[in-house]
């Protein structure tokens, strides 16, 4: 079974049916994992083993089932392909509340997500990373551009096709409280999607079948099967997040958008959820778009990472390249700003001046030029304010949107870190 096949003809897999034979096989350059001749396949999936029940799914300390291995960047067919995607929110105002402008939340973004990989998306609040995720799931209409899943256009799907798409793509939300209906018991919360997607073949319309499946997935995320009758308020934050994960999993998706899934959790619970996400990724052959603002979490979980700033992707690279050799001045500053819990690695920060400009009126040329330390180092070249930099390839799999990406050097970074600006706002009057 190859991925080019239209999804409609693909048999849906149940929790226990997944096996290596069912797993998609790619032509080349698969996901991380052992790659036996030709196409890599996933190890056999199964029900969670001992020690993974009763909230302890991630509690057991053990080895990750697959050794981490870098995927080949340009190999294989992408699962999700995004081309020049734009999502604008209209602003109404003035006389008769007419449309007076747009908030360009996502503006001309292109990237690919390969099957089996974790694509990390980082950026500060308001950079458009959540909007991007929601647009891909058709939760927010796209203004322009194209996105495909297995070659099929996501944005033009209607009716039955759209319903089928909804099943293939799922989302895990940040807020485990706000995303679960407090009036519904867990089996209704998880079962709602099943009911909506029920047909003669899967039999999800029958309560008994549905409840059985809900219990299976509660099991899979490390909760007790009999928790299905409880209500969200009876759970802790980490457990609620597990319910959110079970809800996404129950529909047997291929692609999950994880929108800040651990940001609301304490450190010790966060690590449990991260372990769980990695376990189920291997177990259910999932591909993630992992959206987060925490750079350490993204580094830990992702294969490739995209950095967003004011609605644009400014840099995209394999995770190790990005963290070791960032080429966009924004990425450099972002990475330097992360406080490390290791006193031996206290580093000099590059403190960016000012705040994020408004996405309704982004700066001309390069959107980062108002806060860019590199531009200052280079004596404020004209180009930055006039030309929007191309998202160009500077190395294999490494793309960056900066005119002067090659100018970044150790000395320049050190120099910029030494000049600390404590100014809150930018020079021009807001």
């Amino acid at each position: 079974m190859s991925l080019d096949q239209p999804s409609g003809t693909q048999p849906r897999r149940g929790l226990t049916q997944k096996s290596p034979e069912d797993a998609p096989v790619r032509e080349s350059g698969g996901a991380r994992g052992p790659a036996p001749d030709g196409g890599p396949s996933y190890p056999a999936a199964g029900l969670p083993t001992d020690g993974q029940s009763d909230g302890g799914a991630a509690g057991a300390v053990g080895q990750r089932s697959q050794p981490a291995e870098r995927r080949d960047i340009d190999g294989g067919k992408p699962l999700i392909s995004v081309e020049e995607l734009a999502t604008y929110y209209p602003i109404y105002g003035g006389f008769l509340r007419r449309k007076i402008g747009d908030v360009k939340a996502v503006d001309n973004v292109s990237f690919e997500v390969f099957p089996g990989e974790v694509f990390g998306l980082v950026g500060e609040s308001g950079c458009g990373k959540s909007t991007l995720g929601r647009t891909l799931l058709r939760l927010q209409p796209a203004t322009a551009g194209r996105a495909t899943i297995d070659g099929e256009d996501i944005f033009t799907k209607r009716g039955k096709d759209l319903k089928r798409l909804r099943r293939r793509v799922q989302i895990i939300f940040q807020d485990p409280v706000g995303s679960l209906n407090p009036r519904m018991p867990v089996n209704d919360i998880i079962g709602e999607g099943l009911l909506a997607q029920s047909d003669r073949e899967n039999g999800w319309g029958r309560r008994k079948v549905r409840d059985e499946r809900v219990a299976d997935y509660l099991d899979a995320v490390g909760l007790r099967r009999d928790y299905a009758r409880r209500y969200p308020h009876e759970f802790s934050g980490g457990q609620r997040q597990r319910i959110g994960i079970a809800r996404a999993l129950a529909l047997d998706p291929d692609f999950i958008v994880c929108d800040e899934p651990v940001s609301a959790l304490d450190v010790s619970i966060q690590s449990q959820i991260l372990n769980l996400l990695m376990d189920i990724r291997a177990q259910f052959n999932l591909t993630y778009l992992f959206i987060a603002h925490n750079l350490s979490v993204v580094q830990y979980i992702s294969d490739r990472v995209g950095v967003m700033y004011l609605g644009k992707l400014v840099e995209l690279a394999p995770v190790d390249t990005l963290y070791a050799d960032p080429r966009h001045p924004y990425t450099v500053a972002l990475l330097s700003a992360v406080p490390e819990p290791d006193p031996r690695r206290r580093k000099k920060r590059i403190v960016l001046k000012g705040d994020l400009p408004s996405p309704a009126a982004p700066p001309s040329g390069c959107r980062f030029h108002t806060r860019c330390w590199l531009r200052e180092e280079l004596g404020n070249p004209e180009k930055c304010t006039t030309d929007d930099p191309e998202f160009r390839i500077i190395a294999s799999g490494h793309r960056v949107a900066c005119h002067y990406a090659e100018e970044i050097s150790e000395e320049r970074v050190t120099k910029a870190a030494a000049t600390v600006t404590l100014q809150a706002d930018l020079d021009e009057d807001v």
Partner: protein
Amino acid sequence: MDRFSAVSTPIVVEQPRPPQGDPDLLLDVRDLRTYFHVMDGVVKAVDGIDFSIKRGKTLGIVGESGCGKSVTSLSIMRLLDMPPAENPTGEIWFAGRDLLSLSDHEMRKVRGSEIAMIFQEPMTSLNPVFTVGDQISEAVMQHLDVSGREARDKAIESLRVVGINNPERRVKQYPHELSGGMRQRVMIAMALSCDPKLLIADEPTTALDVTIQAQILELMRKVQDDFDMTLMLITHDLGVVAETVDDVVVMYGGRVVEQGPVDDVLLRPKHPYTEGLLASIPSNGRRGERLNVIKGTVPNPFNMPTGCNFTPRCPFRFEPCPKHDPRVDDPGGPPVACWLWKPAPGTSGPAPRVREGASTASGTQTASGEA
């Protein structure tokens, strides 16, 4: 059945401390207890903690949500809602006075002018219907004998100190006109306006983005130097702690589990909780490796475990743990509340470290318990 009757035996230690507190210590908290009476029982939010801050230094209080770190700061400021809170017991020595014995009137003079506080969410601590200038001036006029005009000048001055451009214009703005980072700067300006000796910052950067957080941390470092201020930083982020504080207090379930200089605590953690917390942070070089986790969840505040309250989640627990409550200031060991490091009652010395189900030992455990 009274489920709170299962009281562990605390070990009473006579500390030879001067009654007025050490002159080097700006703040000296002793055996502070803050309990809340709610419908379901008593929550011992802060259950007998001791710590102190030296003048001009920065103390970090870390712990996860519900560990009592915010209640500690509110107890020091005496800002708790009573009821449900009970009067905190213990002693809080601040510059030669026990804050808990002051009258409300005296305490009001301390608050703001001698101890200032900034909170996590600047939007909820700023009043939306007054301009930021009004709000800073209000604090100034409350504590200093100045006219309205002088107070306004002082407000402008303090906004300038925290790096806000064009403060003459900003004082006329309302909180909603400012960005998150700017609001937090206004909070800091307000806190600084009366030149306090101690600044308590309760999660000052948690709601901010990482580049703005870097700005605010840099700013706090600068104002601390410029104003020769003592800082108490409450946070859950061990990264922030590593970069900003001199000493650190780790709290768990309303108690202090470990304290000491930041390098000691973060590089050579002694308490299994601190160790677990550090090991569960995804950071450099942990890729592909399973994260170490502290199993289970924070105990129910109505039903704290007996003895050491980390016992149910601790991989090294042994006989004395559920029976006797260790404290950081127990004699015979380092400042860590753990029987692995000091003799438990009825034993001759610290116990050897044996992980429960020894096969689960992980390579990330850098600290060792050879003692």
